[in-house]
């Protein structure tokens, strides 16, 4: 392949035009996930590449009253520089679990969300926070909840076509949170997964709770979360045990080792609601 097949659009409109004309083109931002999968000296990349990491429209992040908005080419390090107050502690902790500080200088939030092979570190936190992604093409933009990036059997189902341009994270108060990465930490392996949990109470009642777990498969049950909402806090040991059993059933689709860890993490999260 000749390097002349690499496109460096000067703005988003040009990038969308290239994408329309060349639908199979590889969208390239940080590239960490693409390059680290190739252990060989020479890279094997598709015949056409669209480099988007320097597009000014995709490199901004900022807070409004209602949400944090992040351009898809913002690096993980740039996001962490915003601080926990802007990111929420849950998302900040998820981002700190990615690679090392040098890799976080390259890796982008868009690349972390758009992986087709597996769910990466940011997905469980963004799923709990009800994050939205914007997909753009020349016809306009579509906002999708990150929870809808889960396909059949809990596998990733990132939409084809369109360019991931922005991520929005609603700003909400959370009273409890937990995030835990299990399995090999540095680069994802089959037994790497991330567990995320947030909860909010109002006048001693559990007003909202969200639990997500993802690696090669994603688990989240809004039915189980709804069954918890409205209960008085602290949960009784019997209530916690019953909910934990339901979550264990949900986790039975996971490989055995991950299912056990998922069960233990659910127990720990429910423990936070039981005291």
């Amino acid at each position, binding site marked *: 392949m000749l390097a002349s097949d690499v496109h460096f659009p000067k703005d988003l409109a040009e990038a969308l035009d290239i994408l329309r004309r060349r639908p199979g083109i590889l969208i390239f931002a940080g590239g960490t996930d693409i*390059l*680290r999968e190739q252990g060989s000296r*020479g*890279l094997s990349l598709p015949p056409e*590449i669209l480099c988007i990491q320097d597009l000014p429209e995709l490199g901004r992040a900022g807070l409004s009253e209602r949400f944090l908005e992040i351009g898809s080419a913002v690096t993980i*390090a740039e996001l962490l520089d915003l601080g926990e107050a802007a990111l929420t502690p849950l998302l900040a902790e998820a981002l700190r679990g990615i690679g*090392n*500080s040098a*890799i976080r200088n*390259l890796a982008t939030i868009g690349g972390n969300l758009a992986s087709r092979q597996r769910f990466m570190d940011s997905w469980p936190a963004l799923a709990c926070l009800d994050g939205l992604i914007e997909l753009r093409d020349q016809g306009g933009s579509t906002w999708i909840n990150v929870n809808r990036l889960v396909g059949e059997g809990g596998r990733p189902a990132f939409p084809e076509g369109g360019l991931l341009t922005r991520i929005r994270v609603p700003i909400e108060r959370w009273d409890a949170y937990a995030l835990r990465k299990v399995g090999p930490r540095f680069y994802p392996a089959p037994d790497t997964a991330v567990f995320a949990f947030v909860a909010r109470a109002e006048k001693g009642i559990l007003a909202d709770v969200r639990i997500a777990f993802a690696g090669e498969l994603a688990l989240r049950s809004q039915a189980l979360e709804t069954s918890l909402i409205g209960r008085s806090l602290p949960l009784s040991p019997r209530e916690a045990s019953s909910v934990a059993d339901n979550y264990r059933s949900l986790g039975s689709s996971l490989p055995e080792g991950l299912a056990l860890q998922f069960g233990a993490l659910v127990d720990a999260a429910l423990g936070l609601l039981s005291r």
Partner: protein
Amino acid sequence: MTVSFILNGEDVSAKARSVDRLADLLRHSFNLLGVRSDCRSGRCGRCLILLDGRLVPSCLVPAFNVRGKEVVTIEGFAQTEDYRDIVEGFKSAGVETCGFCEAPKIMASAALLDRKPRPTAREILEQLSCAPCRCTDPEALVRAVQAVAESRARRLYRRAGQ
């Protein structure tokens, strides 16, 4: 494709193919042998460079993507006062790095001190995890980087007073 960029302070151009990693381009086209490409996954730290001032593993950067950017390798950084501060700080703290990790630890320390002139022990250990090696006691590394921070602050203070 010809890529033009700034390398260690000089405008340069090189023929790059889309199969080339930046680490290999730096070694083979510019003979910068302080950049090594061992793990090719960003883990070992032996290819760390500063790309537009940010520490990155050059094995995870395709050569075509360096177009218009500024690259500093250990060879270029070794010409600076900041490099001398770091080497002397390491020496004064009794840190003796090995040939495997010396350049990456220096580059990682430089990038950290640029961003955080007074880093905490946790920040130092986090940053130096980019250049993993068992040759050096982590506590000595923390002392060393903090000593570098002090000496750099003194140098900048003296310069401001002149």
